[in-house]
């Protein structure tokens, strides 16, 4: 995608929509003009960003749950969670209303066994690796402007898995 090309197209589409609305004023079949204007088709990068965001939100929820239940490893998990929150902020287009940080409400259980910790961390490692694999594929399909960010997040997820793996035992 050429930078700026998408926004230019949106401007043109918006202008056409306005012109069409003006032309139809007074007609008996102007109801469609009061409906929300059609949004421009999502670009390939929009789809890639959306997919990456979905994965990051799932990771945030998983880390929130683990942090609430396993305080013994919470410091490490919080550090990784902060990275995912930063990934979300970098992936979301610059719109103030779009920043969403899901927080899971989990009540800590009374008994936390070492096995349970290992199972949970193993699940997080699996999630990180799956996210890294997806991000690599997305990076190779992305535009020149988006690819470096996806590659960097791919690298971060790979390193997260390496960081957590020793906790699995």
């Amino acid at each position: 995608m050429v930078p700026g090309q998408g926004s230019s197209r949106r401007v043109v589409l918006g202008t056409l929509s306005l012109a069409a609305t003006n032309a139809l004023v007074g007609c008996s079949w102007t109801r469609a003009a009061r409906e929300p204007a059609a949004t421009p088709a999502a670009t390939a990068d929009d789809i890639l960003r959306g997919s990456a965001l979905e994965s990051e939100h799932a990771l945030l929820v998983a880390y929130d749950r683990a942090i609430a239940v396993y305080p013994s490893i919470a410091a490490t998990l919080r550090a990784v969670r902060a990275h995912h929150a930063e990934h979300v902020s970098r992936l979301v287009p610059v719109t103030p209303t779009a920043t969403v940080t899901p927080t899971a409400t989990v009540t800590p259980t009374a008994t936390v066994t070492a096995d349970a910790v290992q199972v949970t961390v193993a699940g997080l490692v699996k999630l990180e690796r799956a996210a890294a694999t997806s991000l690599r594929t997305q990076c190779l399909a992305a535009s020149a402007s988006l690819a470096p960010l996806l590659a960097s997040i791919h690298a971060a997820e790979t390193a997260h898995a390496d960081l957590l793996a020793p906790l699995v035992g």
Partner: protein
Amino acid sequence: MPAQDPRPPDPAAVWRLSDLLAMEHAAVYVAAAAGGELAALRPVAESARVLAQNAFTAHRELRDRLVAEILDRGGTAPPAQAAYRLPAVSTDLAGVLLLLADIEDRCSAAAYDAIGDLTGNGRALVTDALAGMAVRGQQARIAAGQPAGQAARALPGA
């Protein structure tokens, strides 16, 4: 049978790959120097020596693949310097480990800058390399005693 035509000229890709290659030459030198420093700190530095060896092997392999990518695009691969000035001369274990981490961060920045100008196999090569740099840099910082929050990078290379 005529030789296969080289790829069409791609000045931006060659320029970025050359920048990364120049950094890889330095990384090979630094990893070797770190290995030498750590050899004098045995036996406590055995695990650190493994990190230095891994870094040396990875950067040497990437260097060779980058040379091939540049030549394949009709460019001229920049040669290594005879020697490099190290960012800090620290001969204790933590200092050498942080030197290893530092060169991974510098290489990560060059890889990050290159990715946008690459496509296909070239982008895949550098994307995979960036992940390896992030892991090795993190491992070196953890081995140097840094906590996870300090050792890990949210956006390697950015």
